[in-house]
């Protein structure tokens, strides 16, 4: 067997040259990752992975418009990419004209297009791994049980097109998360953080924080379901804002299916949906949440169009001073709704005008209420109301006269994230945050404040500990 390995750029050029379609795009994603997972104070699984995925999107003009065909596969050799191009060309020839057809983006080149992919490997944990081993020993001696995960991945994306696009983006994504339980497994705490390179992650400091939280839980207080004055930390807001963003597709709104729809027709763009001073935006340059400054779509859907590949992305206000400013648009849905083209961007930031200080200030100012650790198993109940359900997890703390005085049972809650942005009474400064629910696999680049909500709906008690 003869195998000729090629660089990503060579695969792009070979693919574009091999296509017999009217236009073609080749997207190469080179990805390496390393992870460690632990439970019961011992390492459980681990892995060092490398992958190269190639997506070919072919475009064929025909009576009635332009059809697209998209094929994604593993390809490391020119022959393999040739097979993908042939399949994508055939798919486009067979397909009916695409409803989202548009002129393709032209003639943009990234600085660094010629550069190789940036790798990671297990050495990214050279300081974290020994510290974790020490944390396991220390926790075991103190009667704490640790469970957690570190993951680091770098994906270098190359997007080339027959219309002169040569775009490259390097995306590091990483996180540290650790759950601690007491030896009887009746008391649980959690910490988590996103990171780009693990230079800012100190496992022993997080173990200290977990020990502090488990100590808060030594006094148990049982509370019934009901509405509580509740402090949601930045991680919980990250969960909720990711949902609010994901469901903000312009087409679903325009066709009546979502909270962002106006009855009987149209969208809520221009309406006040949150308290004055609330701002929700995405920005590919926002530090430290930098993400792809150009659009990459492997297939079309309601929120993405392959015809938009390569569109430059820039700061987009979704909510500005409480008013809905934009929804997630393709050029196709922009044409339907008459609103500007505001495509999906891979980060989201919530800021409240004038909010300063840490979450500790919210705790200090609360006479009697709950401080949550994080949320879990969040699912849509009613799209029209954006009503979500979920649980509290790994630590609900009782605040009395500005002090944490014990741990409370968990709850199931039913709430709308946008409605919380209307009802909250206090907010902290915005900080980088890590969504427990979505940060692992889907959406790790968030920055959010903590907020205090005077009447958070805890629908029933969960016995989970």
């Amino acid at each position: 067997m003869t195998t000729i390995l090629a660089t990503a750029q060579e695969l792009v050029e070979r693919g574009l040259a091999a296509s017999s379609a009217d236009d073609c795009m080749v997207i190469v994603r080179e990805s390496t990752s390393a992870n460690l997972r632990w439970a019961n104070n011992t390492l459980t699984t681990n892995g060092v992975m490398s992958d190269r995925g190639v997506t070919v999107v072919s475009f064929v003009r025909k009576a009635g418009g332009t059809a697209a065909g998209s094929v994604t596969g593993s390809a490391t050799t020119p022959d393999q990419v040739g097979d993908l191009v042939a399949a994508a060309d055939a798919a486009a020839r067979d397909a009916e004209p695409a409803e989202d057809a548009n002129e393709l983006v032209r003639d943009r080149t990234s600085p660094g297009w010629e550069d190789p992919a940036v790798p990671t490997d297990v050495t990214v944990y050279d300081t974290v791994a020994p510290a974790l081993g020490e944390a396991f020993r220390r926790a075991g001696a103190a009667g704490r049980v640790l469970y957690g995960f570190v993951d680091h991945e770098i994906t270098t994306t190359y997007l080339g097109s027959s219309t002169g696009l040569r775009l490259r983006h390097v995306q590091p994504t990483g996180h540290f998360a650790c759950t601690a339980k007491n030896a009887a497994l009746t008391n649980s705490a959690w910490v988590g953080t996103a990171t780009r390179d693990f230079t800012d992650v100190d496992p022993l400091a997080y173990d200290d924080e977990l020990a502090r939280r488990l100590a808060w839980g030594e006094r148990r207080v049982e509370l019934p379901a009901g509405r509580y004055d509740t402090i949601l930390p930045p991680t919980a807001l990250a969960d909720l804002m990711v949902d609010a963003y994901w469901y903000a597709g312009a087409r679903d709104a325009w066709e009546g299916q979502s909270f962002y729809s106006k009855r009987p027709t149209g969208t809520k763009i221009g309406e006040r949906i949150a308290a004055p001073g609330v701002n929700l935006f995405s920005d590919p340059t926002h530090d430290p949440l930098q993400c792809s400054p150009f659009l990459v779509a492997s297939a079309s859907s309601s929120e993405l169009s392959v015809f938009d590949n390569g569109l430059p992305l820039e700061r987009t206000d979704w909510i500005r001073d409480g008013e809905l400013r934009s929804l997630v648009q393709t050029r196709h849905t922009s044409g339907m709704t008459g609103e500007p083209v505001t495509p999906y961007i891979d980060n989201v930031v919530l800021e409240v005008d004038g909010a300063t200080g840490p979450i500790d200030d919210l705790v200090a100012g609360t006479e009697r209420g709950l401080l949550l650790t994080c949320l879990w198993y969040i699912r849509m109940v009613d799209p029209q109301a954006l009503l979500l359900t979920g649980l509290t997890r790994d630590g609900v703390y009782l605040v009395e006269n500005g002090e944490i005085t014990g741990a409370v049972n968990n709850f199931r809650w039913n709430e709308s994230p946008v409605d919380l942005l209307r009802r909250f009474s206090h907010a902290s400064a915005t900080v980088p945050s890590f969504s427990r629910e979505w940060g692992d696999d889907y959406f790790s680049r968030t920055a959010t404040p903590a907020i205090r909500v005077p009447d958070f709906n805890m629908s029933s008690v969960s016995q989970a500990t």
Partner: protein
Amino acid sequence: MTGAIDPSFLSLPYRVLGDAALARAADLGVQHADFRLERIRSQRVLVRDGALQGAAEGDEVGFAVRVVHGGAWGFATGVVLTEEEARRVAETAVSVAEVAASMTTRPVELAPEPVYDDVTWVSSYDVNPFDVPTADKTAVLADWTVRLCRGSAVDHATAHLLAVQENKYYADLAGTRTTQQRVRLQPGFEAMGGTSEVFDSMASIAPPVGRGWEYVTGGWDWDAEIDEVPDLLAEKLKAPSVDAGRYDLVIHPSNLWLTIHESIGHATELDRALGYEANYAGTSFATPDKLGTLEYGTPIMHVTGDRTVEHGLATTGYDDEGVATQQWDIVRGGVLVGYQLDRPMAALMPDLNDGRSNGCAFADSPGHIPIQRMANVSLQPDPDGPSTEELISRVERGIYVVGDKSWSIDMQRFNFQFTGQRFFEIEDGRLTGQLRDVAYQATTTEFWGSLEAVGGPETWVLGGAFNCGKAQPGQVAAVSHGCPTSLFRDVRILNTTEEGGQ
């Protein structure tokens, strides 16, 4: 009729790569090594209001080497299909195990399993969906949406098709070699419509299945459902909002499968019960100290695990650790009697299943490590049990629940909340029309403790999902759950509009 292994998979160099990787791992002195090469073909077609919205195909090939070395796991993967790369990946796996050993305080052990030397297994289907032109698939879906949109209450309709062909070659140092092929399909549609005040949707209740294209052309009565759904949606838009309170529920398999998945399936995974998922998917209230004593539900409750049922989404011949698949009891006479196991979990509890794994190891891609994943976990019918109509006739004031929609359960599998596609009010044993805004909320053992009757075999349907999530890094698995229509007494019903109000 079941076909042979796809020749284009057979032409991949998995045997020489496996031999090279395992030989290198053996040279390095490992206790265990396995090699897995996978090819996963996938296709997704989306149609909206008669127009193709997007079609995409995937064709992923790669391999993984997993070793136990110095008592620790080492796992590495690659995509370059050369012997040199296979050896390099084996070396990486060993070096990862060396890093891991310093943090591994309990040595990894695997439950023993007989050797299966060069066995082949192919799932049961007639027409491979990848042999059907995409244009034909698009035409069927477009036709569904056009017909749905003829309903006066329907403003928009979507349809989708997901198809997967999964080929795996597994080899280990003990001598097991398996070559397998599975095919699965998830077709579906949804109709949407509204008035000036309300908007709602109604989706197909057809389950995803381990079948081929024949499922679309004749394996489900799509025409009847497409005829019925626009009228059901019209009725739902005019239906009264439910009064929150306690009701008896008759739950159709199209809804109950998901409650089984969340409250029994995940709760009886031994890795969860032992804390391995405590930082992510969660743990379980059904801990091993309760084995043989925990009253999960009423004595009529009989739940099995299997990876063998025909057309099941978790069904396969051999798992991703070379274990021959089986069927076993999880809940018998209402009592917890079994768990789902992979080889490391079985070694931790050798009294279960005669010290052997029951075949629940699965990795969702060549790039991920196998972990314990869910078998087809199914509620057995009563051989002489009643029909759905008989079950409804036993209810004075209740709700008949059809189709799944929203789902959520806590980290220890106690507290859950589900909605559905269709809720029909039951008064004095008869259906009197639909209700809106319904959710049922309960605690697992309380809910199964309110199970009064299970339907007969004619009410049993194999439901399931393509998208069950677990593990870090996240893995997605397909799994089926069969169940009969069942009657539960005195379950808490929420009004979701009231839940969202202030």
